[in-house]
């Protein structure tokens, strides 16, 4: 006679009453939100890539981003953005240390590391504000470089003239380079702006959980899972920057 066997372990795992993932609802939903956000950022970056593949020439990041505050027009390519990247990585580290302190119900640790994280986030945003202002004063903005009478001198220095294709375009049809500059700035301000908006809301969330921690809300609750959830968001913002950094400043 055939006997039916049940995997008791499996049945009880999916039989209700507990999470098969051993993760709480709030944390699962944070992961799913981040997944959808990853696709939003991904679509932005892929769209940027498509436009870049569509263009014969493209501004060279080493020529666009070569300044550092208080160093005037000295040629220091990639230095400032490296500093920004380092600040964001460090703030991610302090966040994971705050989460770690939360795992051990260590209130003082959570407060200390959250404070550092907030300082790091604000420092990053300040750097970005400086960079945006600087680029704005050099002529780059949303919708810039559309006027057909724009002098070639205003964008020729953004390109790497050691490349044959660049030389050829500037000799025959510099308008193509102007068009690429226009697209470059549009994507740059949209994507770093969208990322900056994420950092800003992350700083606000961090301030909120810092206030809650100081008030002892999580201590009374018995766990610091909220710090973990906001931590996930903050690390995601750092993760996105890793890709933005590669796509805009390195490639």
């Amino acid at each position, binding site marked *: 006679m055939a006997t039916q066997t049940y995997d008791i372990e499996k049945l009880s795992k999916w039989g209700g009453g507990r999470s098969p993932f051993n993760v709480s609802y709030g944390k699962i939903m944070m992961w799913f939100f981040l997944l959808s956000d990853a696709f939003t950022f991904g679509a932005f970056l892929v769209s940027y890539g498509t436009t870049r593949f569509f263009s014969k020439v493209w501004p060279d990041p080493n020529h666009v981003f070569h300044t550092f505050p208080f160093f005037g027009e000295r040629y220091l390519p990639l230095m400032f953005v490296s500093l920004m990247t*380092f600040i964001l990585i460090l703030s991610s580290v302090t966040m994971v240390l705050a989460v770690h302190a939360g*795992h051990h119900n260590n209130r003082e640790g959570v407060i200390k590391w959250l404070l550092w994280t907030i300082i790091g986030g604000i420092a990053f945003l300040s750097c970005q504000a400086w960079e945006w202002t600087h680029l704005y004063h050099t002529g780059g903005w949303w919708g810039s470089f559309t006027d057909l009478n724009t002098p070639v001198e205003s964008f020729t220095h953004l390109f790497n003239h050691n490349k044959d294709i660049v030389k050829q375009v500037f000799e025959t049809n510099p308008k193509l380079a102007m068009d690429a500059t226009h697209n470059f700035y549009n994507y740059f301000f949209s994507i770093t702006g969208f990322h900056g908006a994420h950092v800003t809301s992350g700083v606000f969330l961090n301030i909120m959980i810092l206030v809650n921690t100081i008030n002892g809300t999580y201590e009374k609750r018995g766990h610091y899972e909220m710090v973990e959830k906001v931590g996930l968001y903050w690390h995601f913002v750092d993760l996105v920057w890793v890709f933005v950094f590669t796509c805009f400043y390195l490639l």
Partner: protein
Amino acid sequence: MSAHYSNHDLQHLYEGDQSKLYSGALSHHSDINSKESKDQVKRIWKVTGILTVVTIVEVLLGLLGHGFQPFSVIIAIFLILTIFKAFYIVKVFMHLGDEKKNFVYFVLVPLLLFFWLIIAFLADGQHWLNMNFTFANTIKDIFS
């Protein structure tokens, strides 16, 4: 007498603060100064070191690798290093490495869609560029 066991206790947790059931998954409820805790902190700083070194390598490559031919090798290295950094951030900082396997798949498998997204759209951009070339040359042939 048998020990009393009431389902209502569990039910109460579900309706109130469900997180209490699972916050134990990562929480050790041990002292922050315990060896286990210190090992974890050590691991975090080790990953920080890795991320910093990789970023420095990327910047150096961005500065010095510009004349390198073929440039596609540099691009491939950049992409590999980026994925490498992303892996460590997700695994250690976001603790995805500590979650159950089925949850890890739940999060990571949808990301496979990016393979399609990137290949399809970049190919499309390339195609339009070539089409513009062809079109421009055809026009030139006709009018010259």
